């Protein structure tokens, strides 16, 4: 069965390591913060200028001067630091963030990602997404594997305007964990109860499934 939003977040959380600085995009990636293993410390970077983002505030703590990149009110954890936007993107673009998690509309076998714009609809802008995909070595894209109509989002070539070129190596969909390598999708794990053939059927780009593909464990 396809992963729920919570399961997607739980699976991403398994990629965390103790001492990681992590940038979480809006949507599903945000949920990852709820599943940090107890024996592990990670710090969340918010690209509007905060390292050490905490949980949402209690009513009494709400502060208009303390928001995240999604413009939501947040708190800081102990040991947080605050800085301007150039410094924040120096961290991101300089490769200092250990893991970046973000959503996408499409990815392709060349590691391209499209995530910010659907022509004909309102152009809202790329915000920090282009910086994040270009700056990080370690990126996990979370997305649905295909549209509700069954149209694959894992393509030979992205059809939408790109957010970044050749920068994505790991994709977690509601059906599969996939590595992008040598111009192919490589199936690493299946969502529980989902078969390799089901995944192949919903993957437009070439999907390599070598040997026994394990189910995800939660």
């Amino acid at each position, binding site marked *: 069965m396809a992963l729920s939003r919570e399961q997607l977040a739980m699976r991403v959380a398994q990629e965390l390591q103790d001492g990681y600085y992590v940038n979480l995009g809006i949507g599903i990636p945000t949920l990852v913060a709820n599943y940090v293993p107890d024996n592990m410390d990670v710090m969340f970077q918010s690209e*509007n200028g905060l390292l050490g983002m905490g949980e949402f505030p209690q009513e009494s703590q709400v502060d208009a*001067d303390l928001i995240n990149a999604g413009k939501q009110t947040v708190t800081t954890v102990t040991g947080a630091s605050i800085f301007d936007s150039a410094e924040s993107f120096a961290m991101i673009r300089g490769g200092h963030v250990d893991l970046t998690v973000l959503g996408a509309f499409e990815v392709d076998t060349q590691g391209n990602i499209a995530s910010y714009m659907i022509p004909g609809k309102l152009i809202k*802008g790329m915000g920090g997404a*282009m910086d994040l995909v270009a700056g990080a070595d370690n990126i996990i894209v979370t997305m649905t594997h295909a549209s509700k109509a069954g149209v694959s989002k894992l393509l030979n070539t992205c059809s939408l305007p790109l957010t970044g070129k050749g920068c994505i190596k790991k994709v977690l969909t509601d059906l599969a964990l996939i590595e992008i390598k040598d111009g192919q999708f490589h199936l690493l794990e299946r969502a529980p109860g989902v078969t390799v053939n089901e995944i192949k059927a919903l993957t437009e780009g070439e999907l390599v499934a070598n040997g026994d593909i394990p189910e995800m464990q939660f």
Partner: protein
Amino acid sequence: MAGFNKVVTDYSEILYGLEDGMTVVAGGFGLCGIPQGLIDEIKRKGTRDLTVVSNNCGTTEHGLGVLLVNRQIKKMIASYVGENANFEAQMMSGELEVELTPQGTLAEKMRAGGAGIPAFFTATGYGTAVADGKEVREFNGRQYIMEESITGDFSIVKAWKADTFGNLVFRKTARNFNPLAAMAGKITVVEVEEIVQPGELDPDEIHTPGIYVNRVILGNSEKLIEQRTVATK
């Protein structure tokens, strides 16, 4: 010390020198740390055909959105403009020119403009529409695009505290683009919550040195929250 006293007491004097067709660089992220009083004064003054450089363009009722509604903006350079219905209409009609710029590139362009760096290379945007017409160059086996810096005829900034010399301190994530906007302006004007005497700010804790600041005014705008989100547990 008369020479460095940058305090202006009347909003009608704070925008002296701002003219139609100029480029205005503004601090703020969403509605956080925006110089609302200065924006309102640009509206009152009615300056037109502005090129505005800011991460966002406010909402229909707040932030730079009020200048958009009032048809004072000719061109907008921003990274994300999703919160303003009026924006879409003006853009679609061709009335408003828009240059979408990645957030980190925008921040770096402002800093570079203030620091005398006319252009720099970045991997951000390589292979995307942002790279159209820009030089691509390889360094150490990776592709980068050349981005030119931004300077403003005027910068409008929101800080927490200023001393009368224009040394600035920002509060929490209201800092965002404000120190960069302060650097990028030929004339930089700042709205603050508190004005203190020189010496009250620790030299080691000043975020923006007064050399970047031309005028300071005490503001009284309400701070707004776009996404008031509270803990559920």
